[in-house]
């Protein structure tokens, strides 16, 4: 911002400790940049559902600024409203003033989390999940093994038969039903840490394998590597990489998010690669912002910028830099099946990539790509939103499935594990008229590689 260097934040002595933290953590320049034009309102899923101003980006920014300015206390309603945002960031591309809303909402949640008085069980669970499991690869693998044991040993059958799952809230029961088969064998165990390019390598790239991805969708990771190799890339998988920290950042655990970011920057810098490939929009969106996440850390600011500049989504890398392989679906009786696509909000709105997946889907011979109405709108998955805000998430999913149903698609493709699970849940709950299957775009494409696959 030109000329505004001198004036930053109002000099207010807040009595409320949370107000103080909010004033300190919120980027006051961004709060000022919002000119309240209202152009973000039609893009916001929660505003569209409710039609009330506080449920919009402009409303939430006004609330943040009102607290920072001392116009209101950050009461429970304020805190709930900050958590009611999906964080889909559909407001960012439509904002004339380029307000970094995603960063503001994370700063607000981070401040709220600093003062949160969670009940003992919630606090314990948060600590366990955010601090105890996600950051640690070995514990994730243990989780994968346990989950797999539960799913495979007959325990799941018993749990379902005895009705013991009914102790869980309904939306968690539903989630349990659609979880894919977990595994402790991640992509490195399957393919090693280096996978050669088919023919002359175009570039050396590193796979960001993710945490949940590598437990619940390890096969997608494997297919991503093989698809990249097919498109001409040599793929390395740095073993010391950890969870991206996105769920932490969205939930107000910024310190842990920064710790994870530092580890990842270190791991990938050492690998010396041209691109860092993400196959999960939710992770990629934070990875490209590592420069912002680590901006106050002089020891790795430069490396973080190096890292952020190299992050790219798998579809975009293949379309823009790769040798796009030939994809063909096997002929099916009853004509060409339709496929459709649900954008990952973070891939679309933060990584700003929506054309590349569509370009690839249109190139698959033997299927017809049909655009779904409002494919660019959040499905309600939004990280762990569907767990924390089941009511709103359920409403959004219902609308989504109405649109999906109208496409009559055989396959509903996505680019992010959270969206994929939500789509599976939607199909399970709302039962489209035609048989429909939700898949990660990478798996769909990999299975339709026309040439000999590298085995």
């Amino acid at each position, binding site marked *: 911002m030109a000329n505004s260097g001198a004036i930053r934040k109002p000099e207010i002595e807040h009595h409320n400790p949370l107000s103080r933290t909010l004033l300190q953590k919120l980027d006051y320049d961004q709060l000022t940049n919002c000119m309240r034009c*209202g152009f973000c309102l039609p893009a916001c899923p929660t505003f569209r559902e409710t039609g009330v101003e506080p449920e919009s980006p402009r409303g939430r920014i*006004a609330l943040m600024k009102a607290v920072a300015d001392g116009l209101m206390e950050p009461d429970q309603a304020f805190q709930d409203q900050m958590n009611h945002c999906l964080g889909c960031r559909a407001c960012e591309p439509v904002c004339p003033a380029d307000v970094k809303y995603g960063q503001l909402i994370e700063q607000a949640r981070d401040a709220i989390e600093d003062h949160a008085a969670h009940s003992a069980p919630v606090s314990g669970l948060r600590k366990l999940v955010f601090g105890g499991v996600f950051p640690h690869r070995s514990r994730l693998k243990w989780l994968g093994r346990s989950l797999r044991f539960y799913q495979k040993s007959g325990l799941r059958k018993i749990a379902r038969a005895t009705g013991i799952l009914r102790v869980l809230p309904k939306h968690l029961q539903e989630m349990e039903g659609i979880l894919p088969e977990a595994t402790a064998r991640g992509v490195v165990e399957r393919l090693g840490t280096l996978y050669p390019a088919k023919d002359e390598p175009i570039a050396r790239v590193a796979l960001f394998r993710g945490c949940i991805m590598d437990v619940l969708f390890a096969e997608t990771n494997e297919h991503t590597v093989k698809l990249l190799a097919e498109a001409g890339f040599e793929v390395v998988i740095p073993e010391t990489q950890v969870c991206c920290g996105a769920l932490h950042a969205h939930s107000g655990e910024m310190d842990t998010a920064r710790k994870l970011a530092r580890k990842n920057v270190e791991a990938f810098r050492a690998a010396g690669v041209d691109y860092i490939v993400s196959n999960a929009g939710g992770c990629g969106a934070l990875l490209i912002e590592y420069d912002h996440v680590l901006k106050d850390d002089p020891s790795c600011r430069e490396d973080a910028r190096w890292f952020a500049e190299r992050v790219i989504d798998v579809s975009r890398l293949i379309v823009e830099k790769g040798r796009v392989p030939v994809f063909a679906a096997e002929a099916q009786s009853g004509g060409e099946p339709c496929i459709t696509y649900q954008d990952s909000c973070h891939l679309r709105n933060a990584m700003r990539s929506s054309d590349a997946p569509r370009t690839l889907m249109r190139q698959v011979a033997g299927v017809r790509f049909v655009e779904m109405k409002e494919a660019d709108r959040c499905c309600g998955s939004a990280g762990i939103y569907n767990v924390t805000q089941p009511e709103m998430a359920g409403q959004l999913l219902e609308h989504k499935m109405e649109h999906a149903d109208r496409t009559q698609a055989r396959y509903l493709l996505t680019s992010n594990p959270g969206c994929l699970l939500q789509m599976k849940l939607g199909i399970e709950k709302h039962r489209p008229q035609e048989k429909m299957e939700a898949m990660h775009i990478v798996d769909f494409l990999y299975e339709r590689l026309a040439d000999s696959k590298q085995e």
Partner: protein
Amino acid sequence: MLNPDAAARLRAIVGERNFRDDKEALVAHSYDGTPMLQSLPDGVIYPASTEEVSAIMKVLSEYRIPLVTRGSGTNLCGGTVPALGGVVMVMHRMNRILEVDLENLTATVQPGIITAEFIAHVESLGLFYPPDPSSMRISTIGGNIAECSGGLRGLKYGTTKDYVIGLEAVLADGRILRTGGKLMKDVAGYDLTKLLVGSEGTLAIVTEATLKLIPPPKTKKTMLAMYKDIYGAARTVSSIIEGRIIPATLEILDNPTIRVVSDFAKLGLPEDMAAILIIEQDGDPEAVERDIARITEICMKERADRIEVAASREEAERLLTARRSAFTALARLRPTTILEDATVPRSKIADMVLRINEIARKHGVTIATFGHAGDGNLHPTATTDARDKEEIHRVELAFEEIFEAAIELGGTITGEHGVGVVKAPYLEWKVGEAGMAVMKGIKTAFDPHHLLNPGKVFAKETRKRVVLQHG
């Protein structure tokens, strides 16, 4: 704080969920699209029907509580900021299209419908509703009526007032007024329909509107002309009109805007151009071709430096990018963006743009100008920082001089945004003492206790006119 009895009665009318007086609701309805303006209401109410609006007004007038009606709150003159507190009435729940009458070519709608959604529906039936304010993706028809919104198509097709032919509105005391109808002619008494359009929510609350629709043009064509001499651009505008051609769109960007847009949208526009005109004609294919050819000739005669005529719709979109990104590009320069809408007779466009540039220089502020050259409606846009009190003061002085300059050139202080709070101190400059007296009389006839949108249009005090020094 609202009187608790009044609050209880309001709750009883709309239900618990649709009346709020918690802090979150009050803060979120304390502003609109106007920079540096905020004032908390005492309550927020969401009615669902004309009957509810009427019942609400009976309670509010009994307790003498002010009311501000709003749609999406995109107003740029502070028109929907509850300057004196009271209740904010949000019309979003009254958002139905009640009827599209294909025999009379009219539509009847509730005020809360989003303009773009209404337009999409009408177009799906093969019809056309021309008013297209830049905020149309979120602004409501009710808000457009209250402000008499314009848009890019104003020159050829007129503004909101030209399409509103009937209204249902609730008066301050709760009585329901009906004006006009599905009638193309109606001289039964004063034209209350036109009076309510643009009355900024100070006379009555519009609860239903009957709108005129027209058949859509068959085709359109877009072109762009660049000038090193701003008078060449201005003469082009006059010559086109003189040549009896009325383009659908005739937009201008001045040099400061060109520089910012070029940098933002990476359009590679030559930065030494004094002005760019963006021209669009619609209609029957032969007529459009003929008009565009004649406009091209006029542009060449007026020594345009470069002329581009779009061969395809994609190319047209590219040419339109310059105009479309003007606001966005300017909004990103500095934290605060102040967009005004001084309007002059179209023959005075060049003089006005140069006067604006000169005024900006004099006060050391950044003001870029773009807008609807065809109807003389300019958008001088200041980019500044609300936190810098000293600079804001200079911006205010500059705008004061811009209003004065517009009036001196035979123009007005506002072409399409409304008076609201921001321009109330200058209204008398435009309409004079007699004009103010008549308007105040009308206001009192409609709303004797001044409950509807108080603090708007009529200022406590008119600003002293600034004496301009030229040269």
